[in-house]
């Protein structure tokens, strides 16, 4: 009865001057939370956790130019959350998610990240895709102590206590791929090509260092602005210099133009003269490029939809049941799917949703049910995972032709490659 009396008056007052009361309110709230949850070590920092639910955030672009790439990640994260809930949730709590749209716009990402952490008090955020969006939200996560599960393969050079990187950092994608092409295909000369921003540039820097370390030669290196569609001049240069390998890190829509123009210029990738190795074309991109245009190219990734193992078969089946038979699953989509599972494992190991405890529990977390096989969180917050090389097929899938025997150690600050 007492509460019934108090609450309406509070509400009325707040309608007049919430700002004045907000400081008082915060003190009162923190008091209430502290006293209420002091015994409740599951959540001692006021996250959005109730007795039977826990709220997390999903933050991707579902509108704008990046939507086409990020949609797969949203789907994967929702699927993982659904499956976790069907298994009984995390620490007995069902996961609820709040989805926000980053709108392919980095400041919007920062705004929404802040909203999720400050207003919604989410226990974890699964999101971001481009490096630019991650760089924009990073200060927000560090300031408000949130936890971000970031799915994309990226350039490395970063290690935040508030991010778990479920994709590969650059060395994991590059070194094994180049070793393979040198050993198995006898490649001697390379032509490096990329879109002009931090990830292709850093990746090519690592690639060049590694190639030169092996005593081989880079015969050309070139960058084009994002969205560029005229590759004829570089194709002519490639024809002139005759490299053994075109190492292509072209991203987004430019890919469509690049591969079509390669084909139109008479370079048949199936003949492997030159051979094309990419680290930026997943099954998702092939949908746009068209299997007939990229057939015969090789890609170095950690995951392909065609991976033959029971985990992946179950994953692909569940994904298709959820989103339709024609859906394709790329490398990043799988990495995004790992996010909620890794978070669940860390929370259960810590016995708490507290960000600090989850962070402490994270290194060493293993996932034997990962579609890519087995992954483990390294103390540097990246994942141990295998590198695989796939050969692009006409039907838009990759055929796996090589996989490293050992898990590749993540090394975001590679010495000797800087």
């Amino acid at each position, binding site marked *: 009865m007492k509460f019934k009396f108090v609450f309406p008056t509070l509400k009325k007052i707040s309608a007049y001057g919430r700002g*004045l009361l907000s400081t008082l309110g915060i003190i009162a709230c923190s008091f209430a939370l502290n006293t209420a949850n002091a015994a409740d070590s599951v959540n001692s920092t006021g996250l959005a956790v109730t007795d039977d639910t826990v709220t997390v955030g999903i933050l991707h672009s579902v*509108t704008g130019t990046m939507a086409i790439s990020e949609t797969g990640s949203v789907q994967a994260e929702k699927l993982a959350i659904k499956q976790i809930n069907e298994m009984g949730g995390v620490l007995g709590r069902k996961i609820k998610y709040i989805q*926000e749209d980053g709108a392919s716009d*980095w400041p919007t990402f920062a705004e929404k990240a802040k909203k999720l952490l400050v207003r919604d008090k989410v226990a974890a955020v699964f999101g971001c895709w481009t490096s630019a969006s991650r760089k924009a939200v990073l200060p927000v996560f560090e*300031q408000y102590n949130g936890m971000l599960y970031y799915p994309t393969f990226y350039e490395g050079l970063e290690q935040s206590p508030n991010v778990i990187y479920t994709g590969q950092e650059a060395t994991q994608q590059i070194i094994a791929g180049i070793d393979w092409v040198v050993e198995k295909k006898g490649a001697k000369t390379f032509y490096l090509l990329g879109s*002009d921003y931090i990830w292709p540039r850093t990746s090519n820097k690592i690639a060049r260092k590694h190639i030169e370390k092996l005593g081989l030669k880079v015969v050309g290196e070139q960058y084009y602005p994002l969205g560029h569609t005229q590759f004829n001049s570089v194709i002519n240069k490639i024809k002139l210099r005759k490299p053994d390998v075109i190492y292509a890190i072209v991203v987004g829509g430019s890919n469509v133009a690049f591969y079509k123009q390669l084909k139109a210029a008479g370079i048949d990738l199936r003949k492997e003269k030159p051979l094309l190795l990419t680290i930026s074309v997943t099954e998702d991109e092939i949908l746009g490029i068209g299997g007939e245009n990229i057939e015969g190219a090789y890609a170095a990734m950690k995951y392909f939809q065609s991976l033959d193992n029971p985990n992946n078969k179950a994953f692909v089946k569940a994904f298709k049941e959820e989103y339709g038979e024609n859906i394709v699953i790329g490398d990043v989509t799988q990495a995004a799917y790992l996010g909620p599972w890794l978070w669940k494992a860390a929370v259960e190991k810590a016995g708490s949703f507290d960000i600090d405890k989850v962070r402490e529990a994270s290194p060493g977390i293993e996932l034997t049910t990962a579609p890519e096989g087995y992954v483990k969180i390294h103390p540097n917050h990246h994942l141990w995972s295998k590198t695989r090389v796939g050969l692009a097929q006409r039907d838009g899938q990759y055929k796996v032709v090589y996989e490293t025997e050992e898990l590749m150690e993540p090394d975001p600050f590679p010495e000797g490659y800087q």
Partner: protein
Amino acid sequence: MSIQSIREFMPKNNLVYFLCLALLIFVVFPLSMDIFRLNLIGKYLTYAFVAIGLVLCWGYGGILSLGQGVFFGLGGYCMAMFLKLESSDPESTKIQSTPGIPDFMDWNQITELPWFWEPFYSFPFTLLAILLVPSIFAYIIGVAMFKRRVGGVYFAIITQAIASILTILIIGQQGYTGGVNGITDLRTLLGWNIRTDSAKYILYFVNGVLLFICLLVAQFIRKSKLGRLLLAMREREDRVRFSGYDVSNFKIFIFCVAAAFSAIGGAMFTLQVGFMSPSFVGIVPSIEMVIFCAVGGRLSIFGAVYGTLLVNWAKTTFSESFPELWLFAMGALFISVVMAFPSGLAGLYKSKVEPWLIQTYTNIKRYYLERNGTRPAESGETL
């Protein structure tokens, strides 16, 4: 300044508009919102600087610039460069191969601070640069265009091209500019942590005060002879020229003023949001800023502020509630504004709200007059 000239500068109804807006920005918002929402409002208000500039230059001068993002960006980048240098002291960047330079330079194998970054160690220089760099740039564009009597659509297209060129330049020169990521992770201003809640409150009020200074300057221009000349130029440029005025100089001047306003907005944006990226410089944000101004009403400096607030508030609210459909809602908003009130919120106010207010006011007055016999009621009492 005589009473007469003050009256002319600020007619009674304009004073009411000023006071209403001040009440809203300095009292209502801070009291009714928590710091997260208030910080968002602060961010929206930085766009209002651009919109006010556009009212002067487009609404009054008839110069449609689709590249105001350039000046917003230049202002923002000047501020960001200063903040970035401050946060990249050798101590906190010691893991880099070259400590003491911004992190993105290190990633791009740059081993020494470029010469044009050097002066941004100085705060006074930065403040000057925020105003001067965009103004001088606007001056150069203005001289090149207006002296040759390039105007109208051609000018709009050229400003778009400039916005596009600058974006490509920034993205292409990522070693010097941070590329597509922009300049991120800005922490302190002269040792003062700008990421705390109290700093955000202070920055919000500083932003508000600067906005009012810009509004007053705009009001001054509007009410001065220059304002009337601008209107005349918009309607009949030739006649103004034949009357002996040098039209191009007025155009250049107002374009520079609009650029300087935008730059102040950009600098405040960097301070409040904590980073700057090329996504504010390009064509799309520049056009968006014209939309803010159009929704508000392109002839009203107050309308511009309200328009900016409305559009951005709608953007945030729609996208929070319907993350996958919000763009349709925004589209509907723009279409309905253009269809229903072509002169924006300010036009709506003028044609619908103001007559109603006057009517109500007279009704109340009459009521009091009738009730109290013939003694006229004092307006202060009745309202």
